């Protein structure tokens, strides 16, 4: 049996696990060096300041040790010399799907992206390997001054804005993987929403890894100017291989006074992908940032969407779900820093582990001494579906102001026998009943998703539950 077929068998019903033949126009050799970093920058014809940031970040990445917390065993298995850090599949970004090479277009057709674009999206960016292959935005939004570009084009066309905000929320020195991303970033989205503009329908980015041992390092920067709003949706898949791939993104959000950003992620990476992502937003006065975060796949996910509540009256909302199946560790959570008075935040985390999977909630909530009258509420619920699986919660709460009201609660339990019995007494099989209970458990998350995503996620979870009993 070949390595690929072994892996496919191990992963089972992962629907996005096919891969296309690799037709790269440019492919870097495996491994990371300062030359690779400079070559990426040169290839993209970037300004000098960006090259300098990349090089500084690379040096920081090399010097910085691996995290000593989390799943250190899995982290130590990453071989950075066996990763391809840049692969260009198409020489240009198409503005029509007809401009996209046939094999890549077929991939996105199978993933349903063009269909979704026609039905319910304001704009779409599709990234394949290291760079964007398709990009579009509705004309009326363009006329209102909304900028929605891939990050490379954003740097070329709006260098002043990018220079001002790039790394302002997540500096390269934040952690080892933000340094790696800053050194070799490619692709991602750049969005600017002008004052008072409300983007009614979501914009979507879809990230696809196709090649073996690929590293994808997209960089996303979203700036919502005063009183504006936007909903950004991202999806991620990759083929199933027996060797590992690395996805290490950085996402920076800036919600200026009164703005509202909702960032929805449904990642369904295959089980050979390390998903090590840094996501953080800054909310100014009366602004609101929402992270709606679904983690279904990957080998190891370490992702803790964060909000810094910098302006008075700002609000943060984090809703996350994680499903950890066989061979997976979903180490997800949330961070909220209340820097200003009268700021509020809610964190809701739901996690399921099955077939030996491990789910972890890891969170940090901090009330700074000068932040008066803050409110913070965290709820974590976890279900363990079989005797091989495991759930952990590691919440940290630091309260430095006596006027704050902070609450955290968490529970780990199994599916109740009486719930199963009730549903089975109404004619459902045990697997159907379990699927319904799990979908109900995830309902606070799915109700926040666009309907098409919610339906797909419910189907996905029902499939995952098949064969879980008996």
């Amino acid at each position: 049996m070949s390595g690929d077929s072994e892996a496919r068998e191990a992963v089972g019903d992962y629907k996005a696990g096919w891969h296309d033949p690799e037709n790269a126009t440019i492919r870097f050799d495996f491994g990371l060096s300062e030359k690779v970093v400079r070559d990426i920058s040169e290839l993209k014809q970037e300004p000098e300041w960006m090259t300098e940031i990349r090089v500084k970040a690379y040096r920081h990445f090399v010097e910085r040790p691996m995290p000593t917390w989390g799943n250190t065993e899995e982290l130590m298995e990453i071989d950075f010399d066996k990763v391809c850090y840049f692969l260009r599949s198409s020489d240009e970004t198409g503005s029509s799907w007809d401009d996209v090479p046939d094999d890549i277009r077929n991939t996105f057709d199978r993933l349903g992206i063009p269909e979704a674009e026609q039905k319910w999206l304001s704009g779409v960016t599709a990234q394949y390997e290291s760079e964007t292959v398709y990009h579009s935005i509705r004309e009326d939004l363009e006329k209102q001054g909304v900028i929605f570009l891939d990050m490379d084009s954003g740097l070329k066309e709006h260098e002043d804005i990018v220079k001002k905000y790039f790394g302002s929320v997540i500096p390269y020195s934040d952690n080892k993987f933000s340094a790696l991303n800053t050194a070799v970033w490619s692709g991602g989205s750049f969005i600017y929403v002008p004052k008072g503009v409300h983007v009614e329908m979501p914009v979507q980015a879809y990230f696809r890894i196709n090649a073996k041992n690929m590293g994808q390092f997209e960089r996303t920067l979203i700036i919502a100017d005063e009183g504006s709003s936007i909903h950004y949706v991202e999806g991620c898949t990759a083929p199933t291989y027996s060797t590992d791939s690395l996805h290490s993104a950085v996402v920076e959000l800036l919600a200026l006074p009164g703005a509202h950003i909702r960032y929805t992620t449904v990642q369904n990476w295959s089980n050979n992908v390390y998903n090590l992502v840094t996501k953080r937003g800054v909310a100014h006065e009366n602004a609101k940032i929402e992270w709606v975060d679904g983690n279904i796949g990957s080998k190891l996910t370490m992702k803790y969407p964060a909000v810094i509540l910098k302006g008075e009256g700002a609000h943060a909302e984090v809703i996350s779900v994680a499903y950890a199946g066989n061979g997976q560790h979903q180490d997800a959570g949330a961070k909220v820093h209340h820097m200003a008075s009268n700021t509020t935040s809610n964190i809701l985390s739901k996690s399921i582990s099955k077939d030996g999977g491990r789910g972890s909630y890891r969170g940090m909530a901090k009330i700074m001494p000068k932040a008066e009258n803050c409110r913070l509420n965290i709820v974590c619920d976890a279900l363990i579906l079989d005797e091989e699986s495991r759930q952990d919660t590691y919440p940290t709460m630091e309260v430095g102001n006596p006027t704050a009201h902070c609450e955290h609660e968490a529970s780990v339990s199994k599916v109740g026998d009486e719930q199963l019995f009730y549903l089975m007494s109404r004619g459902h099989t045990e697997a159907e009943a379990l699927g319904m209970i799990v979908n109900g458990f995830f309902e606070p998350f799915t109700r926040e998703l666009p309907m098409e995503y919610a339906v797909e996620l419910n189907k996905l979870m029902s499939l995952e539950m098949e064969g879980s009993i008996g």
Partner: protein
Amino acid sequence: MDASSQYLSADHPDRADHLWRYTPWKKIHPTGDISDIPSDFSIPEVSLKAIDGSALPPGISLDMGDVHSEGLPDDEKITKSFLEAVTGESKFTLTVAPKFKSEVPMIIEISTSGTFCSAHICLDIGKLAELELVTVVRGTCKWFGMLRTGSTGEGAITSDVVVNKLEHGKLLRVESISIPRNSQFKAGTVSSGSTITKADLRYRMFQPGGNLNVLGSILSAREMSLDHHIEIYHDSPETFSRLDWNSACGGSSRTVGTGMLRVSKGSNGADAAQLFQNLLLSRDAQADSIPELEVSEHDVVGCGHGTASGPVDEDQMFYLASRGFSPNESKSTLIAAFLNSTLSEMGGDKMHGWLVSELDSDLSELGD
């Protein structure tokens, strides 16, 4: 390998570990030089008596000499090996005979003095014994290290409360207690003394039917830093644990409560919960909580944790004001009630009365 060699060969603790996040080892080490094991430790005065001054009943004794620590879980290496190294001859064993029973709580008084002082107290509680025990630490030493190890007998019912009344200085307290079959163990902590406290308390239920209740009433004032880490292990089926930890934090003090609840694979029927509550009483006070859960068994009754932090409730203040209480009286009353909710669970009426009388003066300091 002896304890000194064990300590010197152990890796330095990492602050990524929550145990060391807020009070790193260097801060609580007697000299701050973590490669050093000072030799000039004094032995505190240690005595056992009945809490009401009556004669000791038969079946209980406290003896100085070597302690039995074989078979105890090998917990955090740094502090345990350090304390084993520095306790030297300052080792005591509390022996409680099987089926011992006393209406009167017992008290171990530890009186410290000098610069560095340490003691290792081993609990050896017999089967089916019923005991209420207070260990109170007083005195003026600059650094006191207390290691408490031991186990209770099968079917024993024990209330074990440690009261920290050190006048100032640093307290390093490490506990490792094993709870066997059908044994009930209440572990209380009352802390209102010392300037810096680092406590690492570990309880392990290794046989079916173990029942553990961990309670904390923590008063921090002035510039105190009181850091308590509690680990509870469910290593056997049908075990039960509750942790309720109440901290009132005034002045520019800081309290830290970190809890780790581990349910190992095969511990079906485990029922575990922990709750940390913090009352913030002044502008410069800070309270940090990290209640952690690691559950590797799916067939559990339930495992949960919670934490809540906030100021004195304004509605309750208003209610008391409407009944004629001054603002200070109202605040003191509410703080006392908050701390008493855990204090009153630590033992029977006699023990409770004694604990309340010990804490009265400290409570008034917080209420001001």
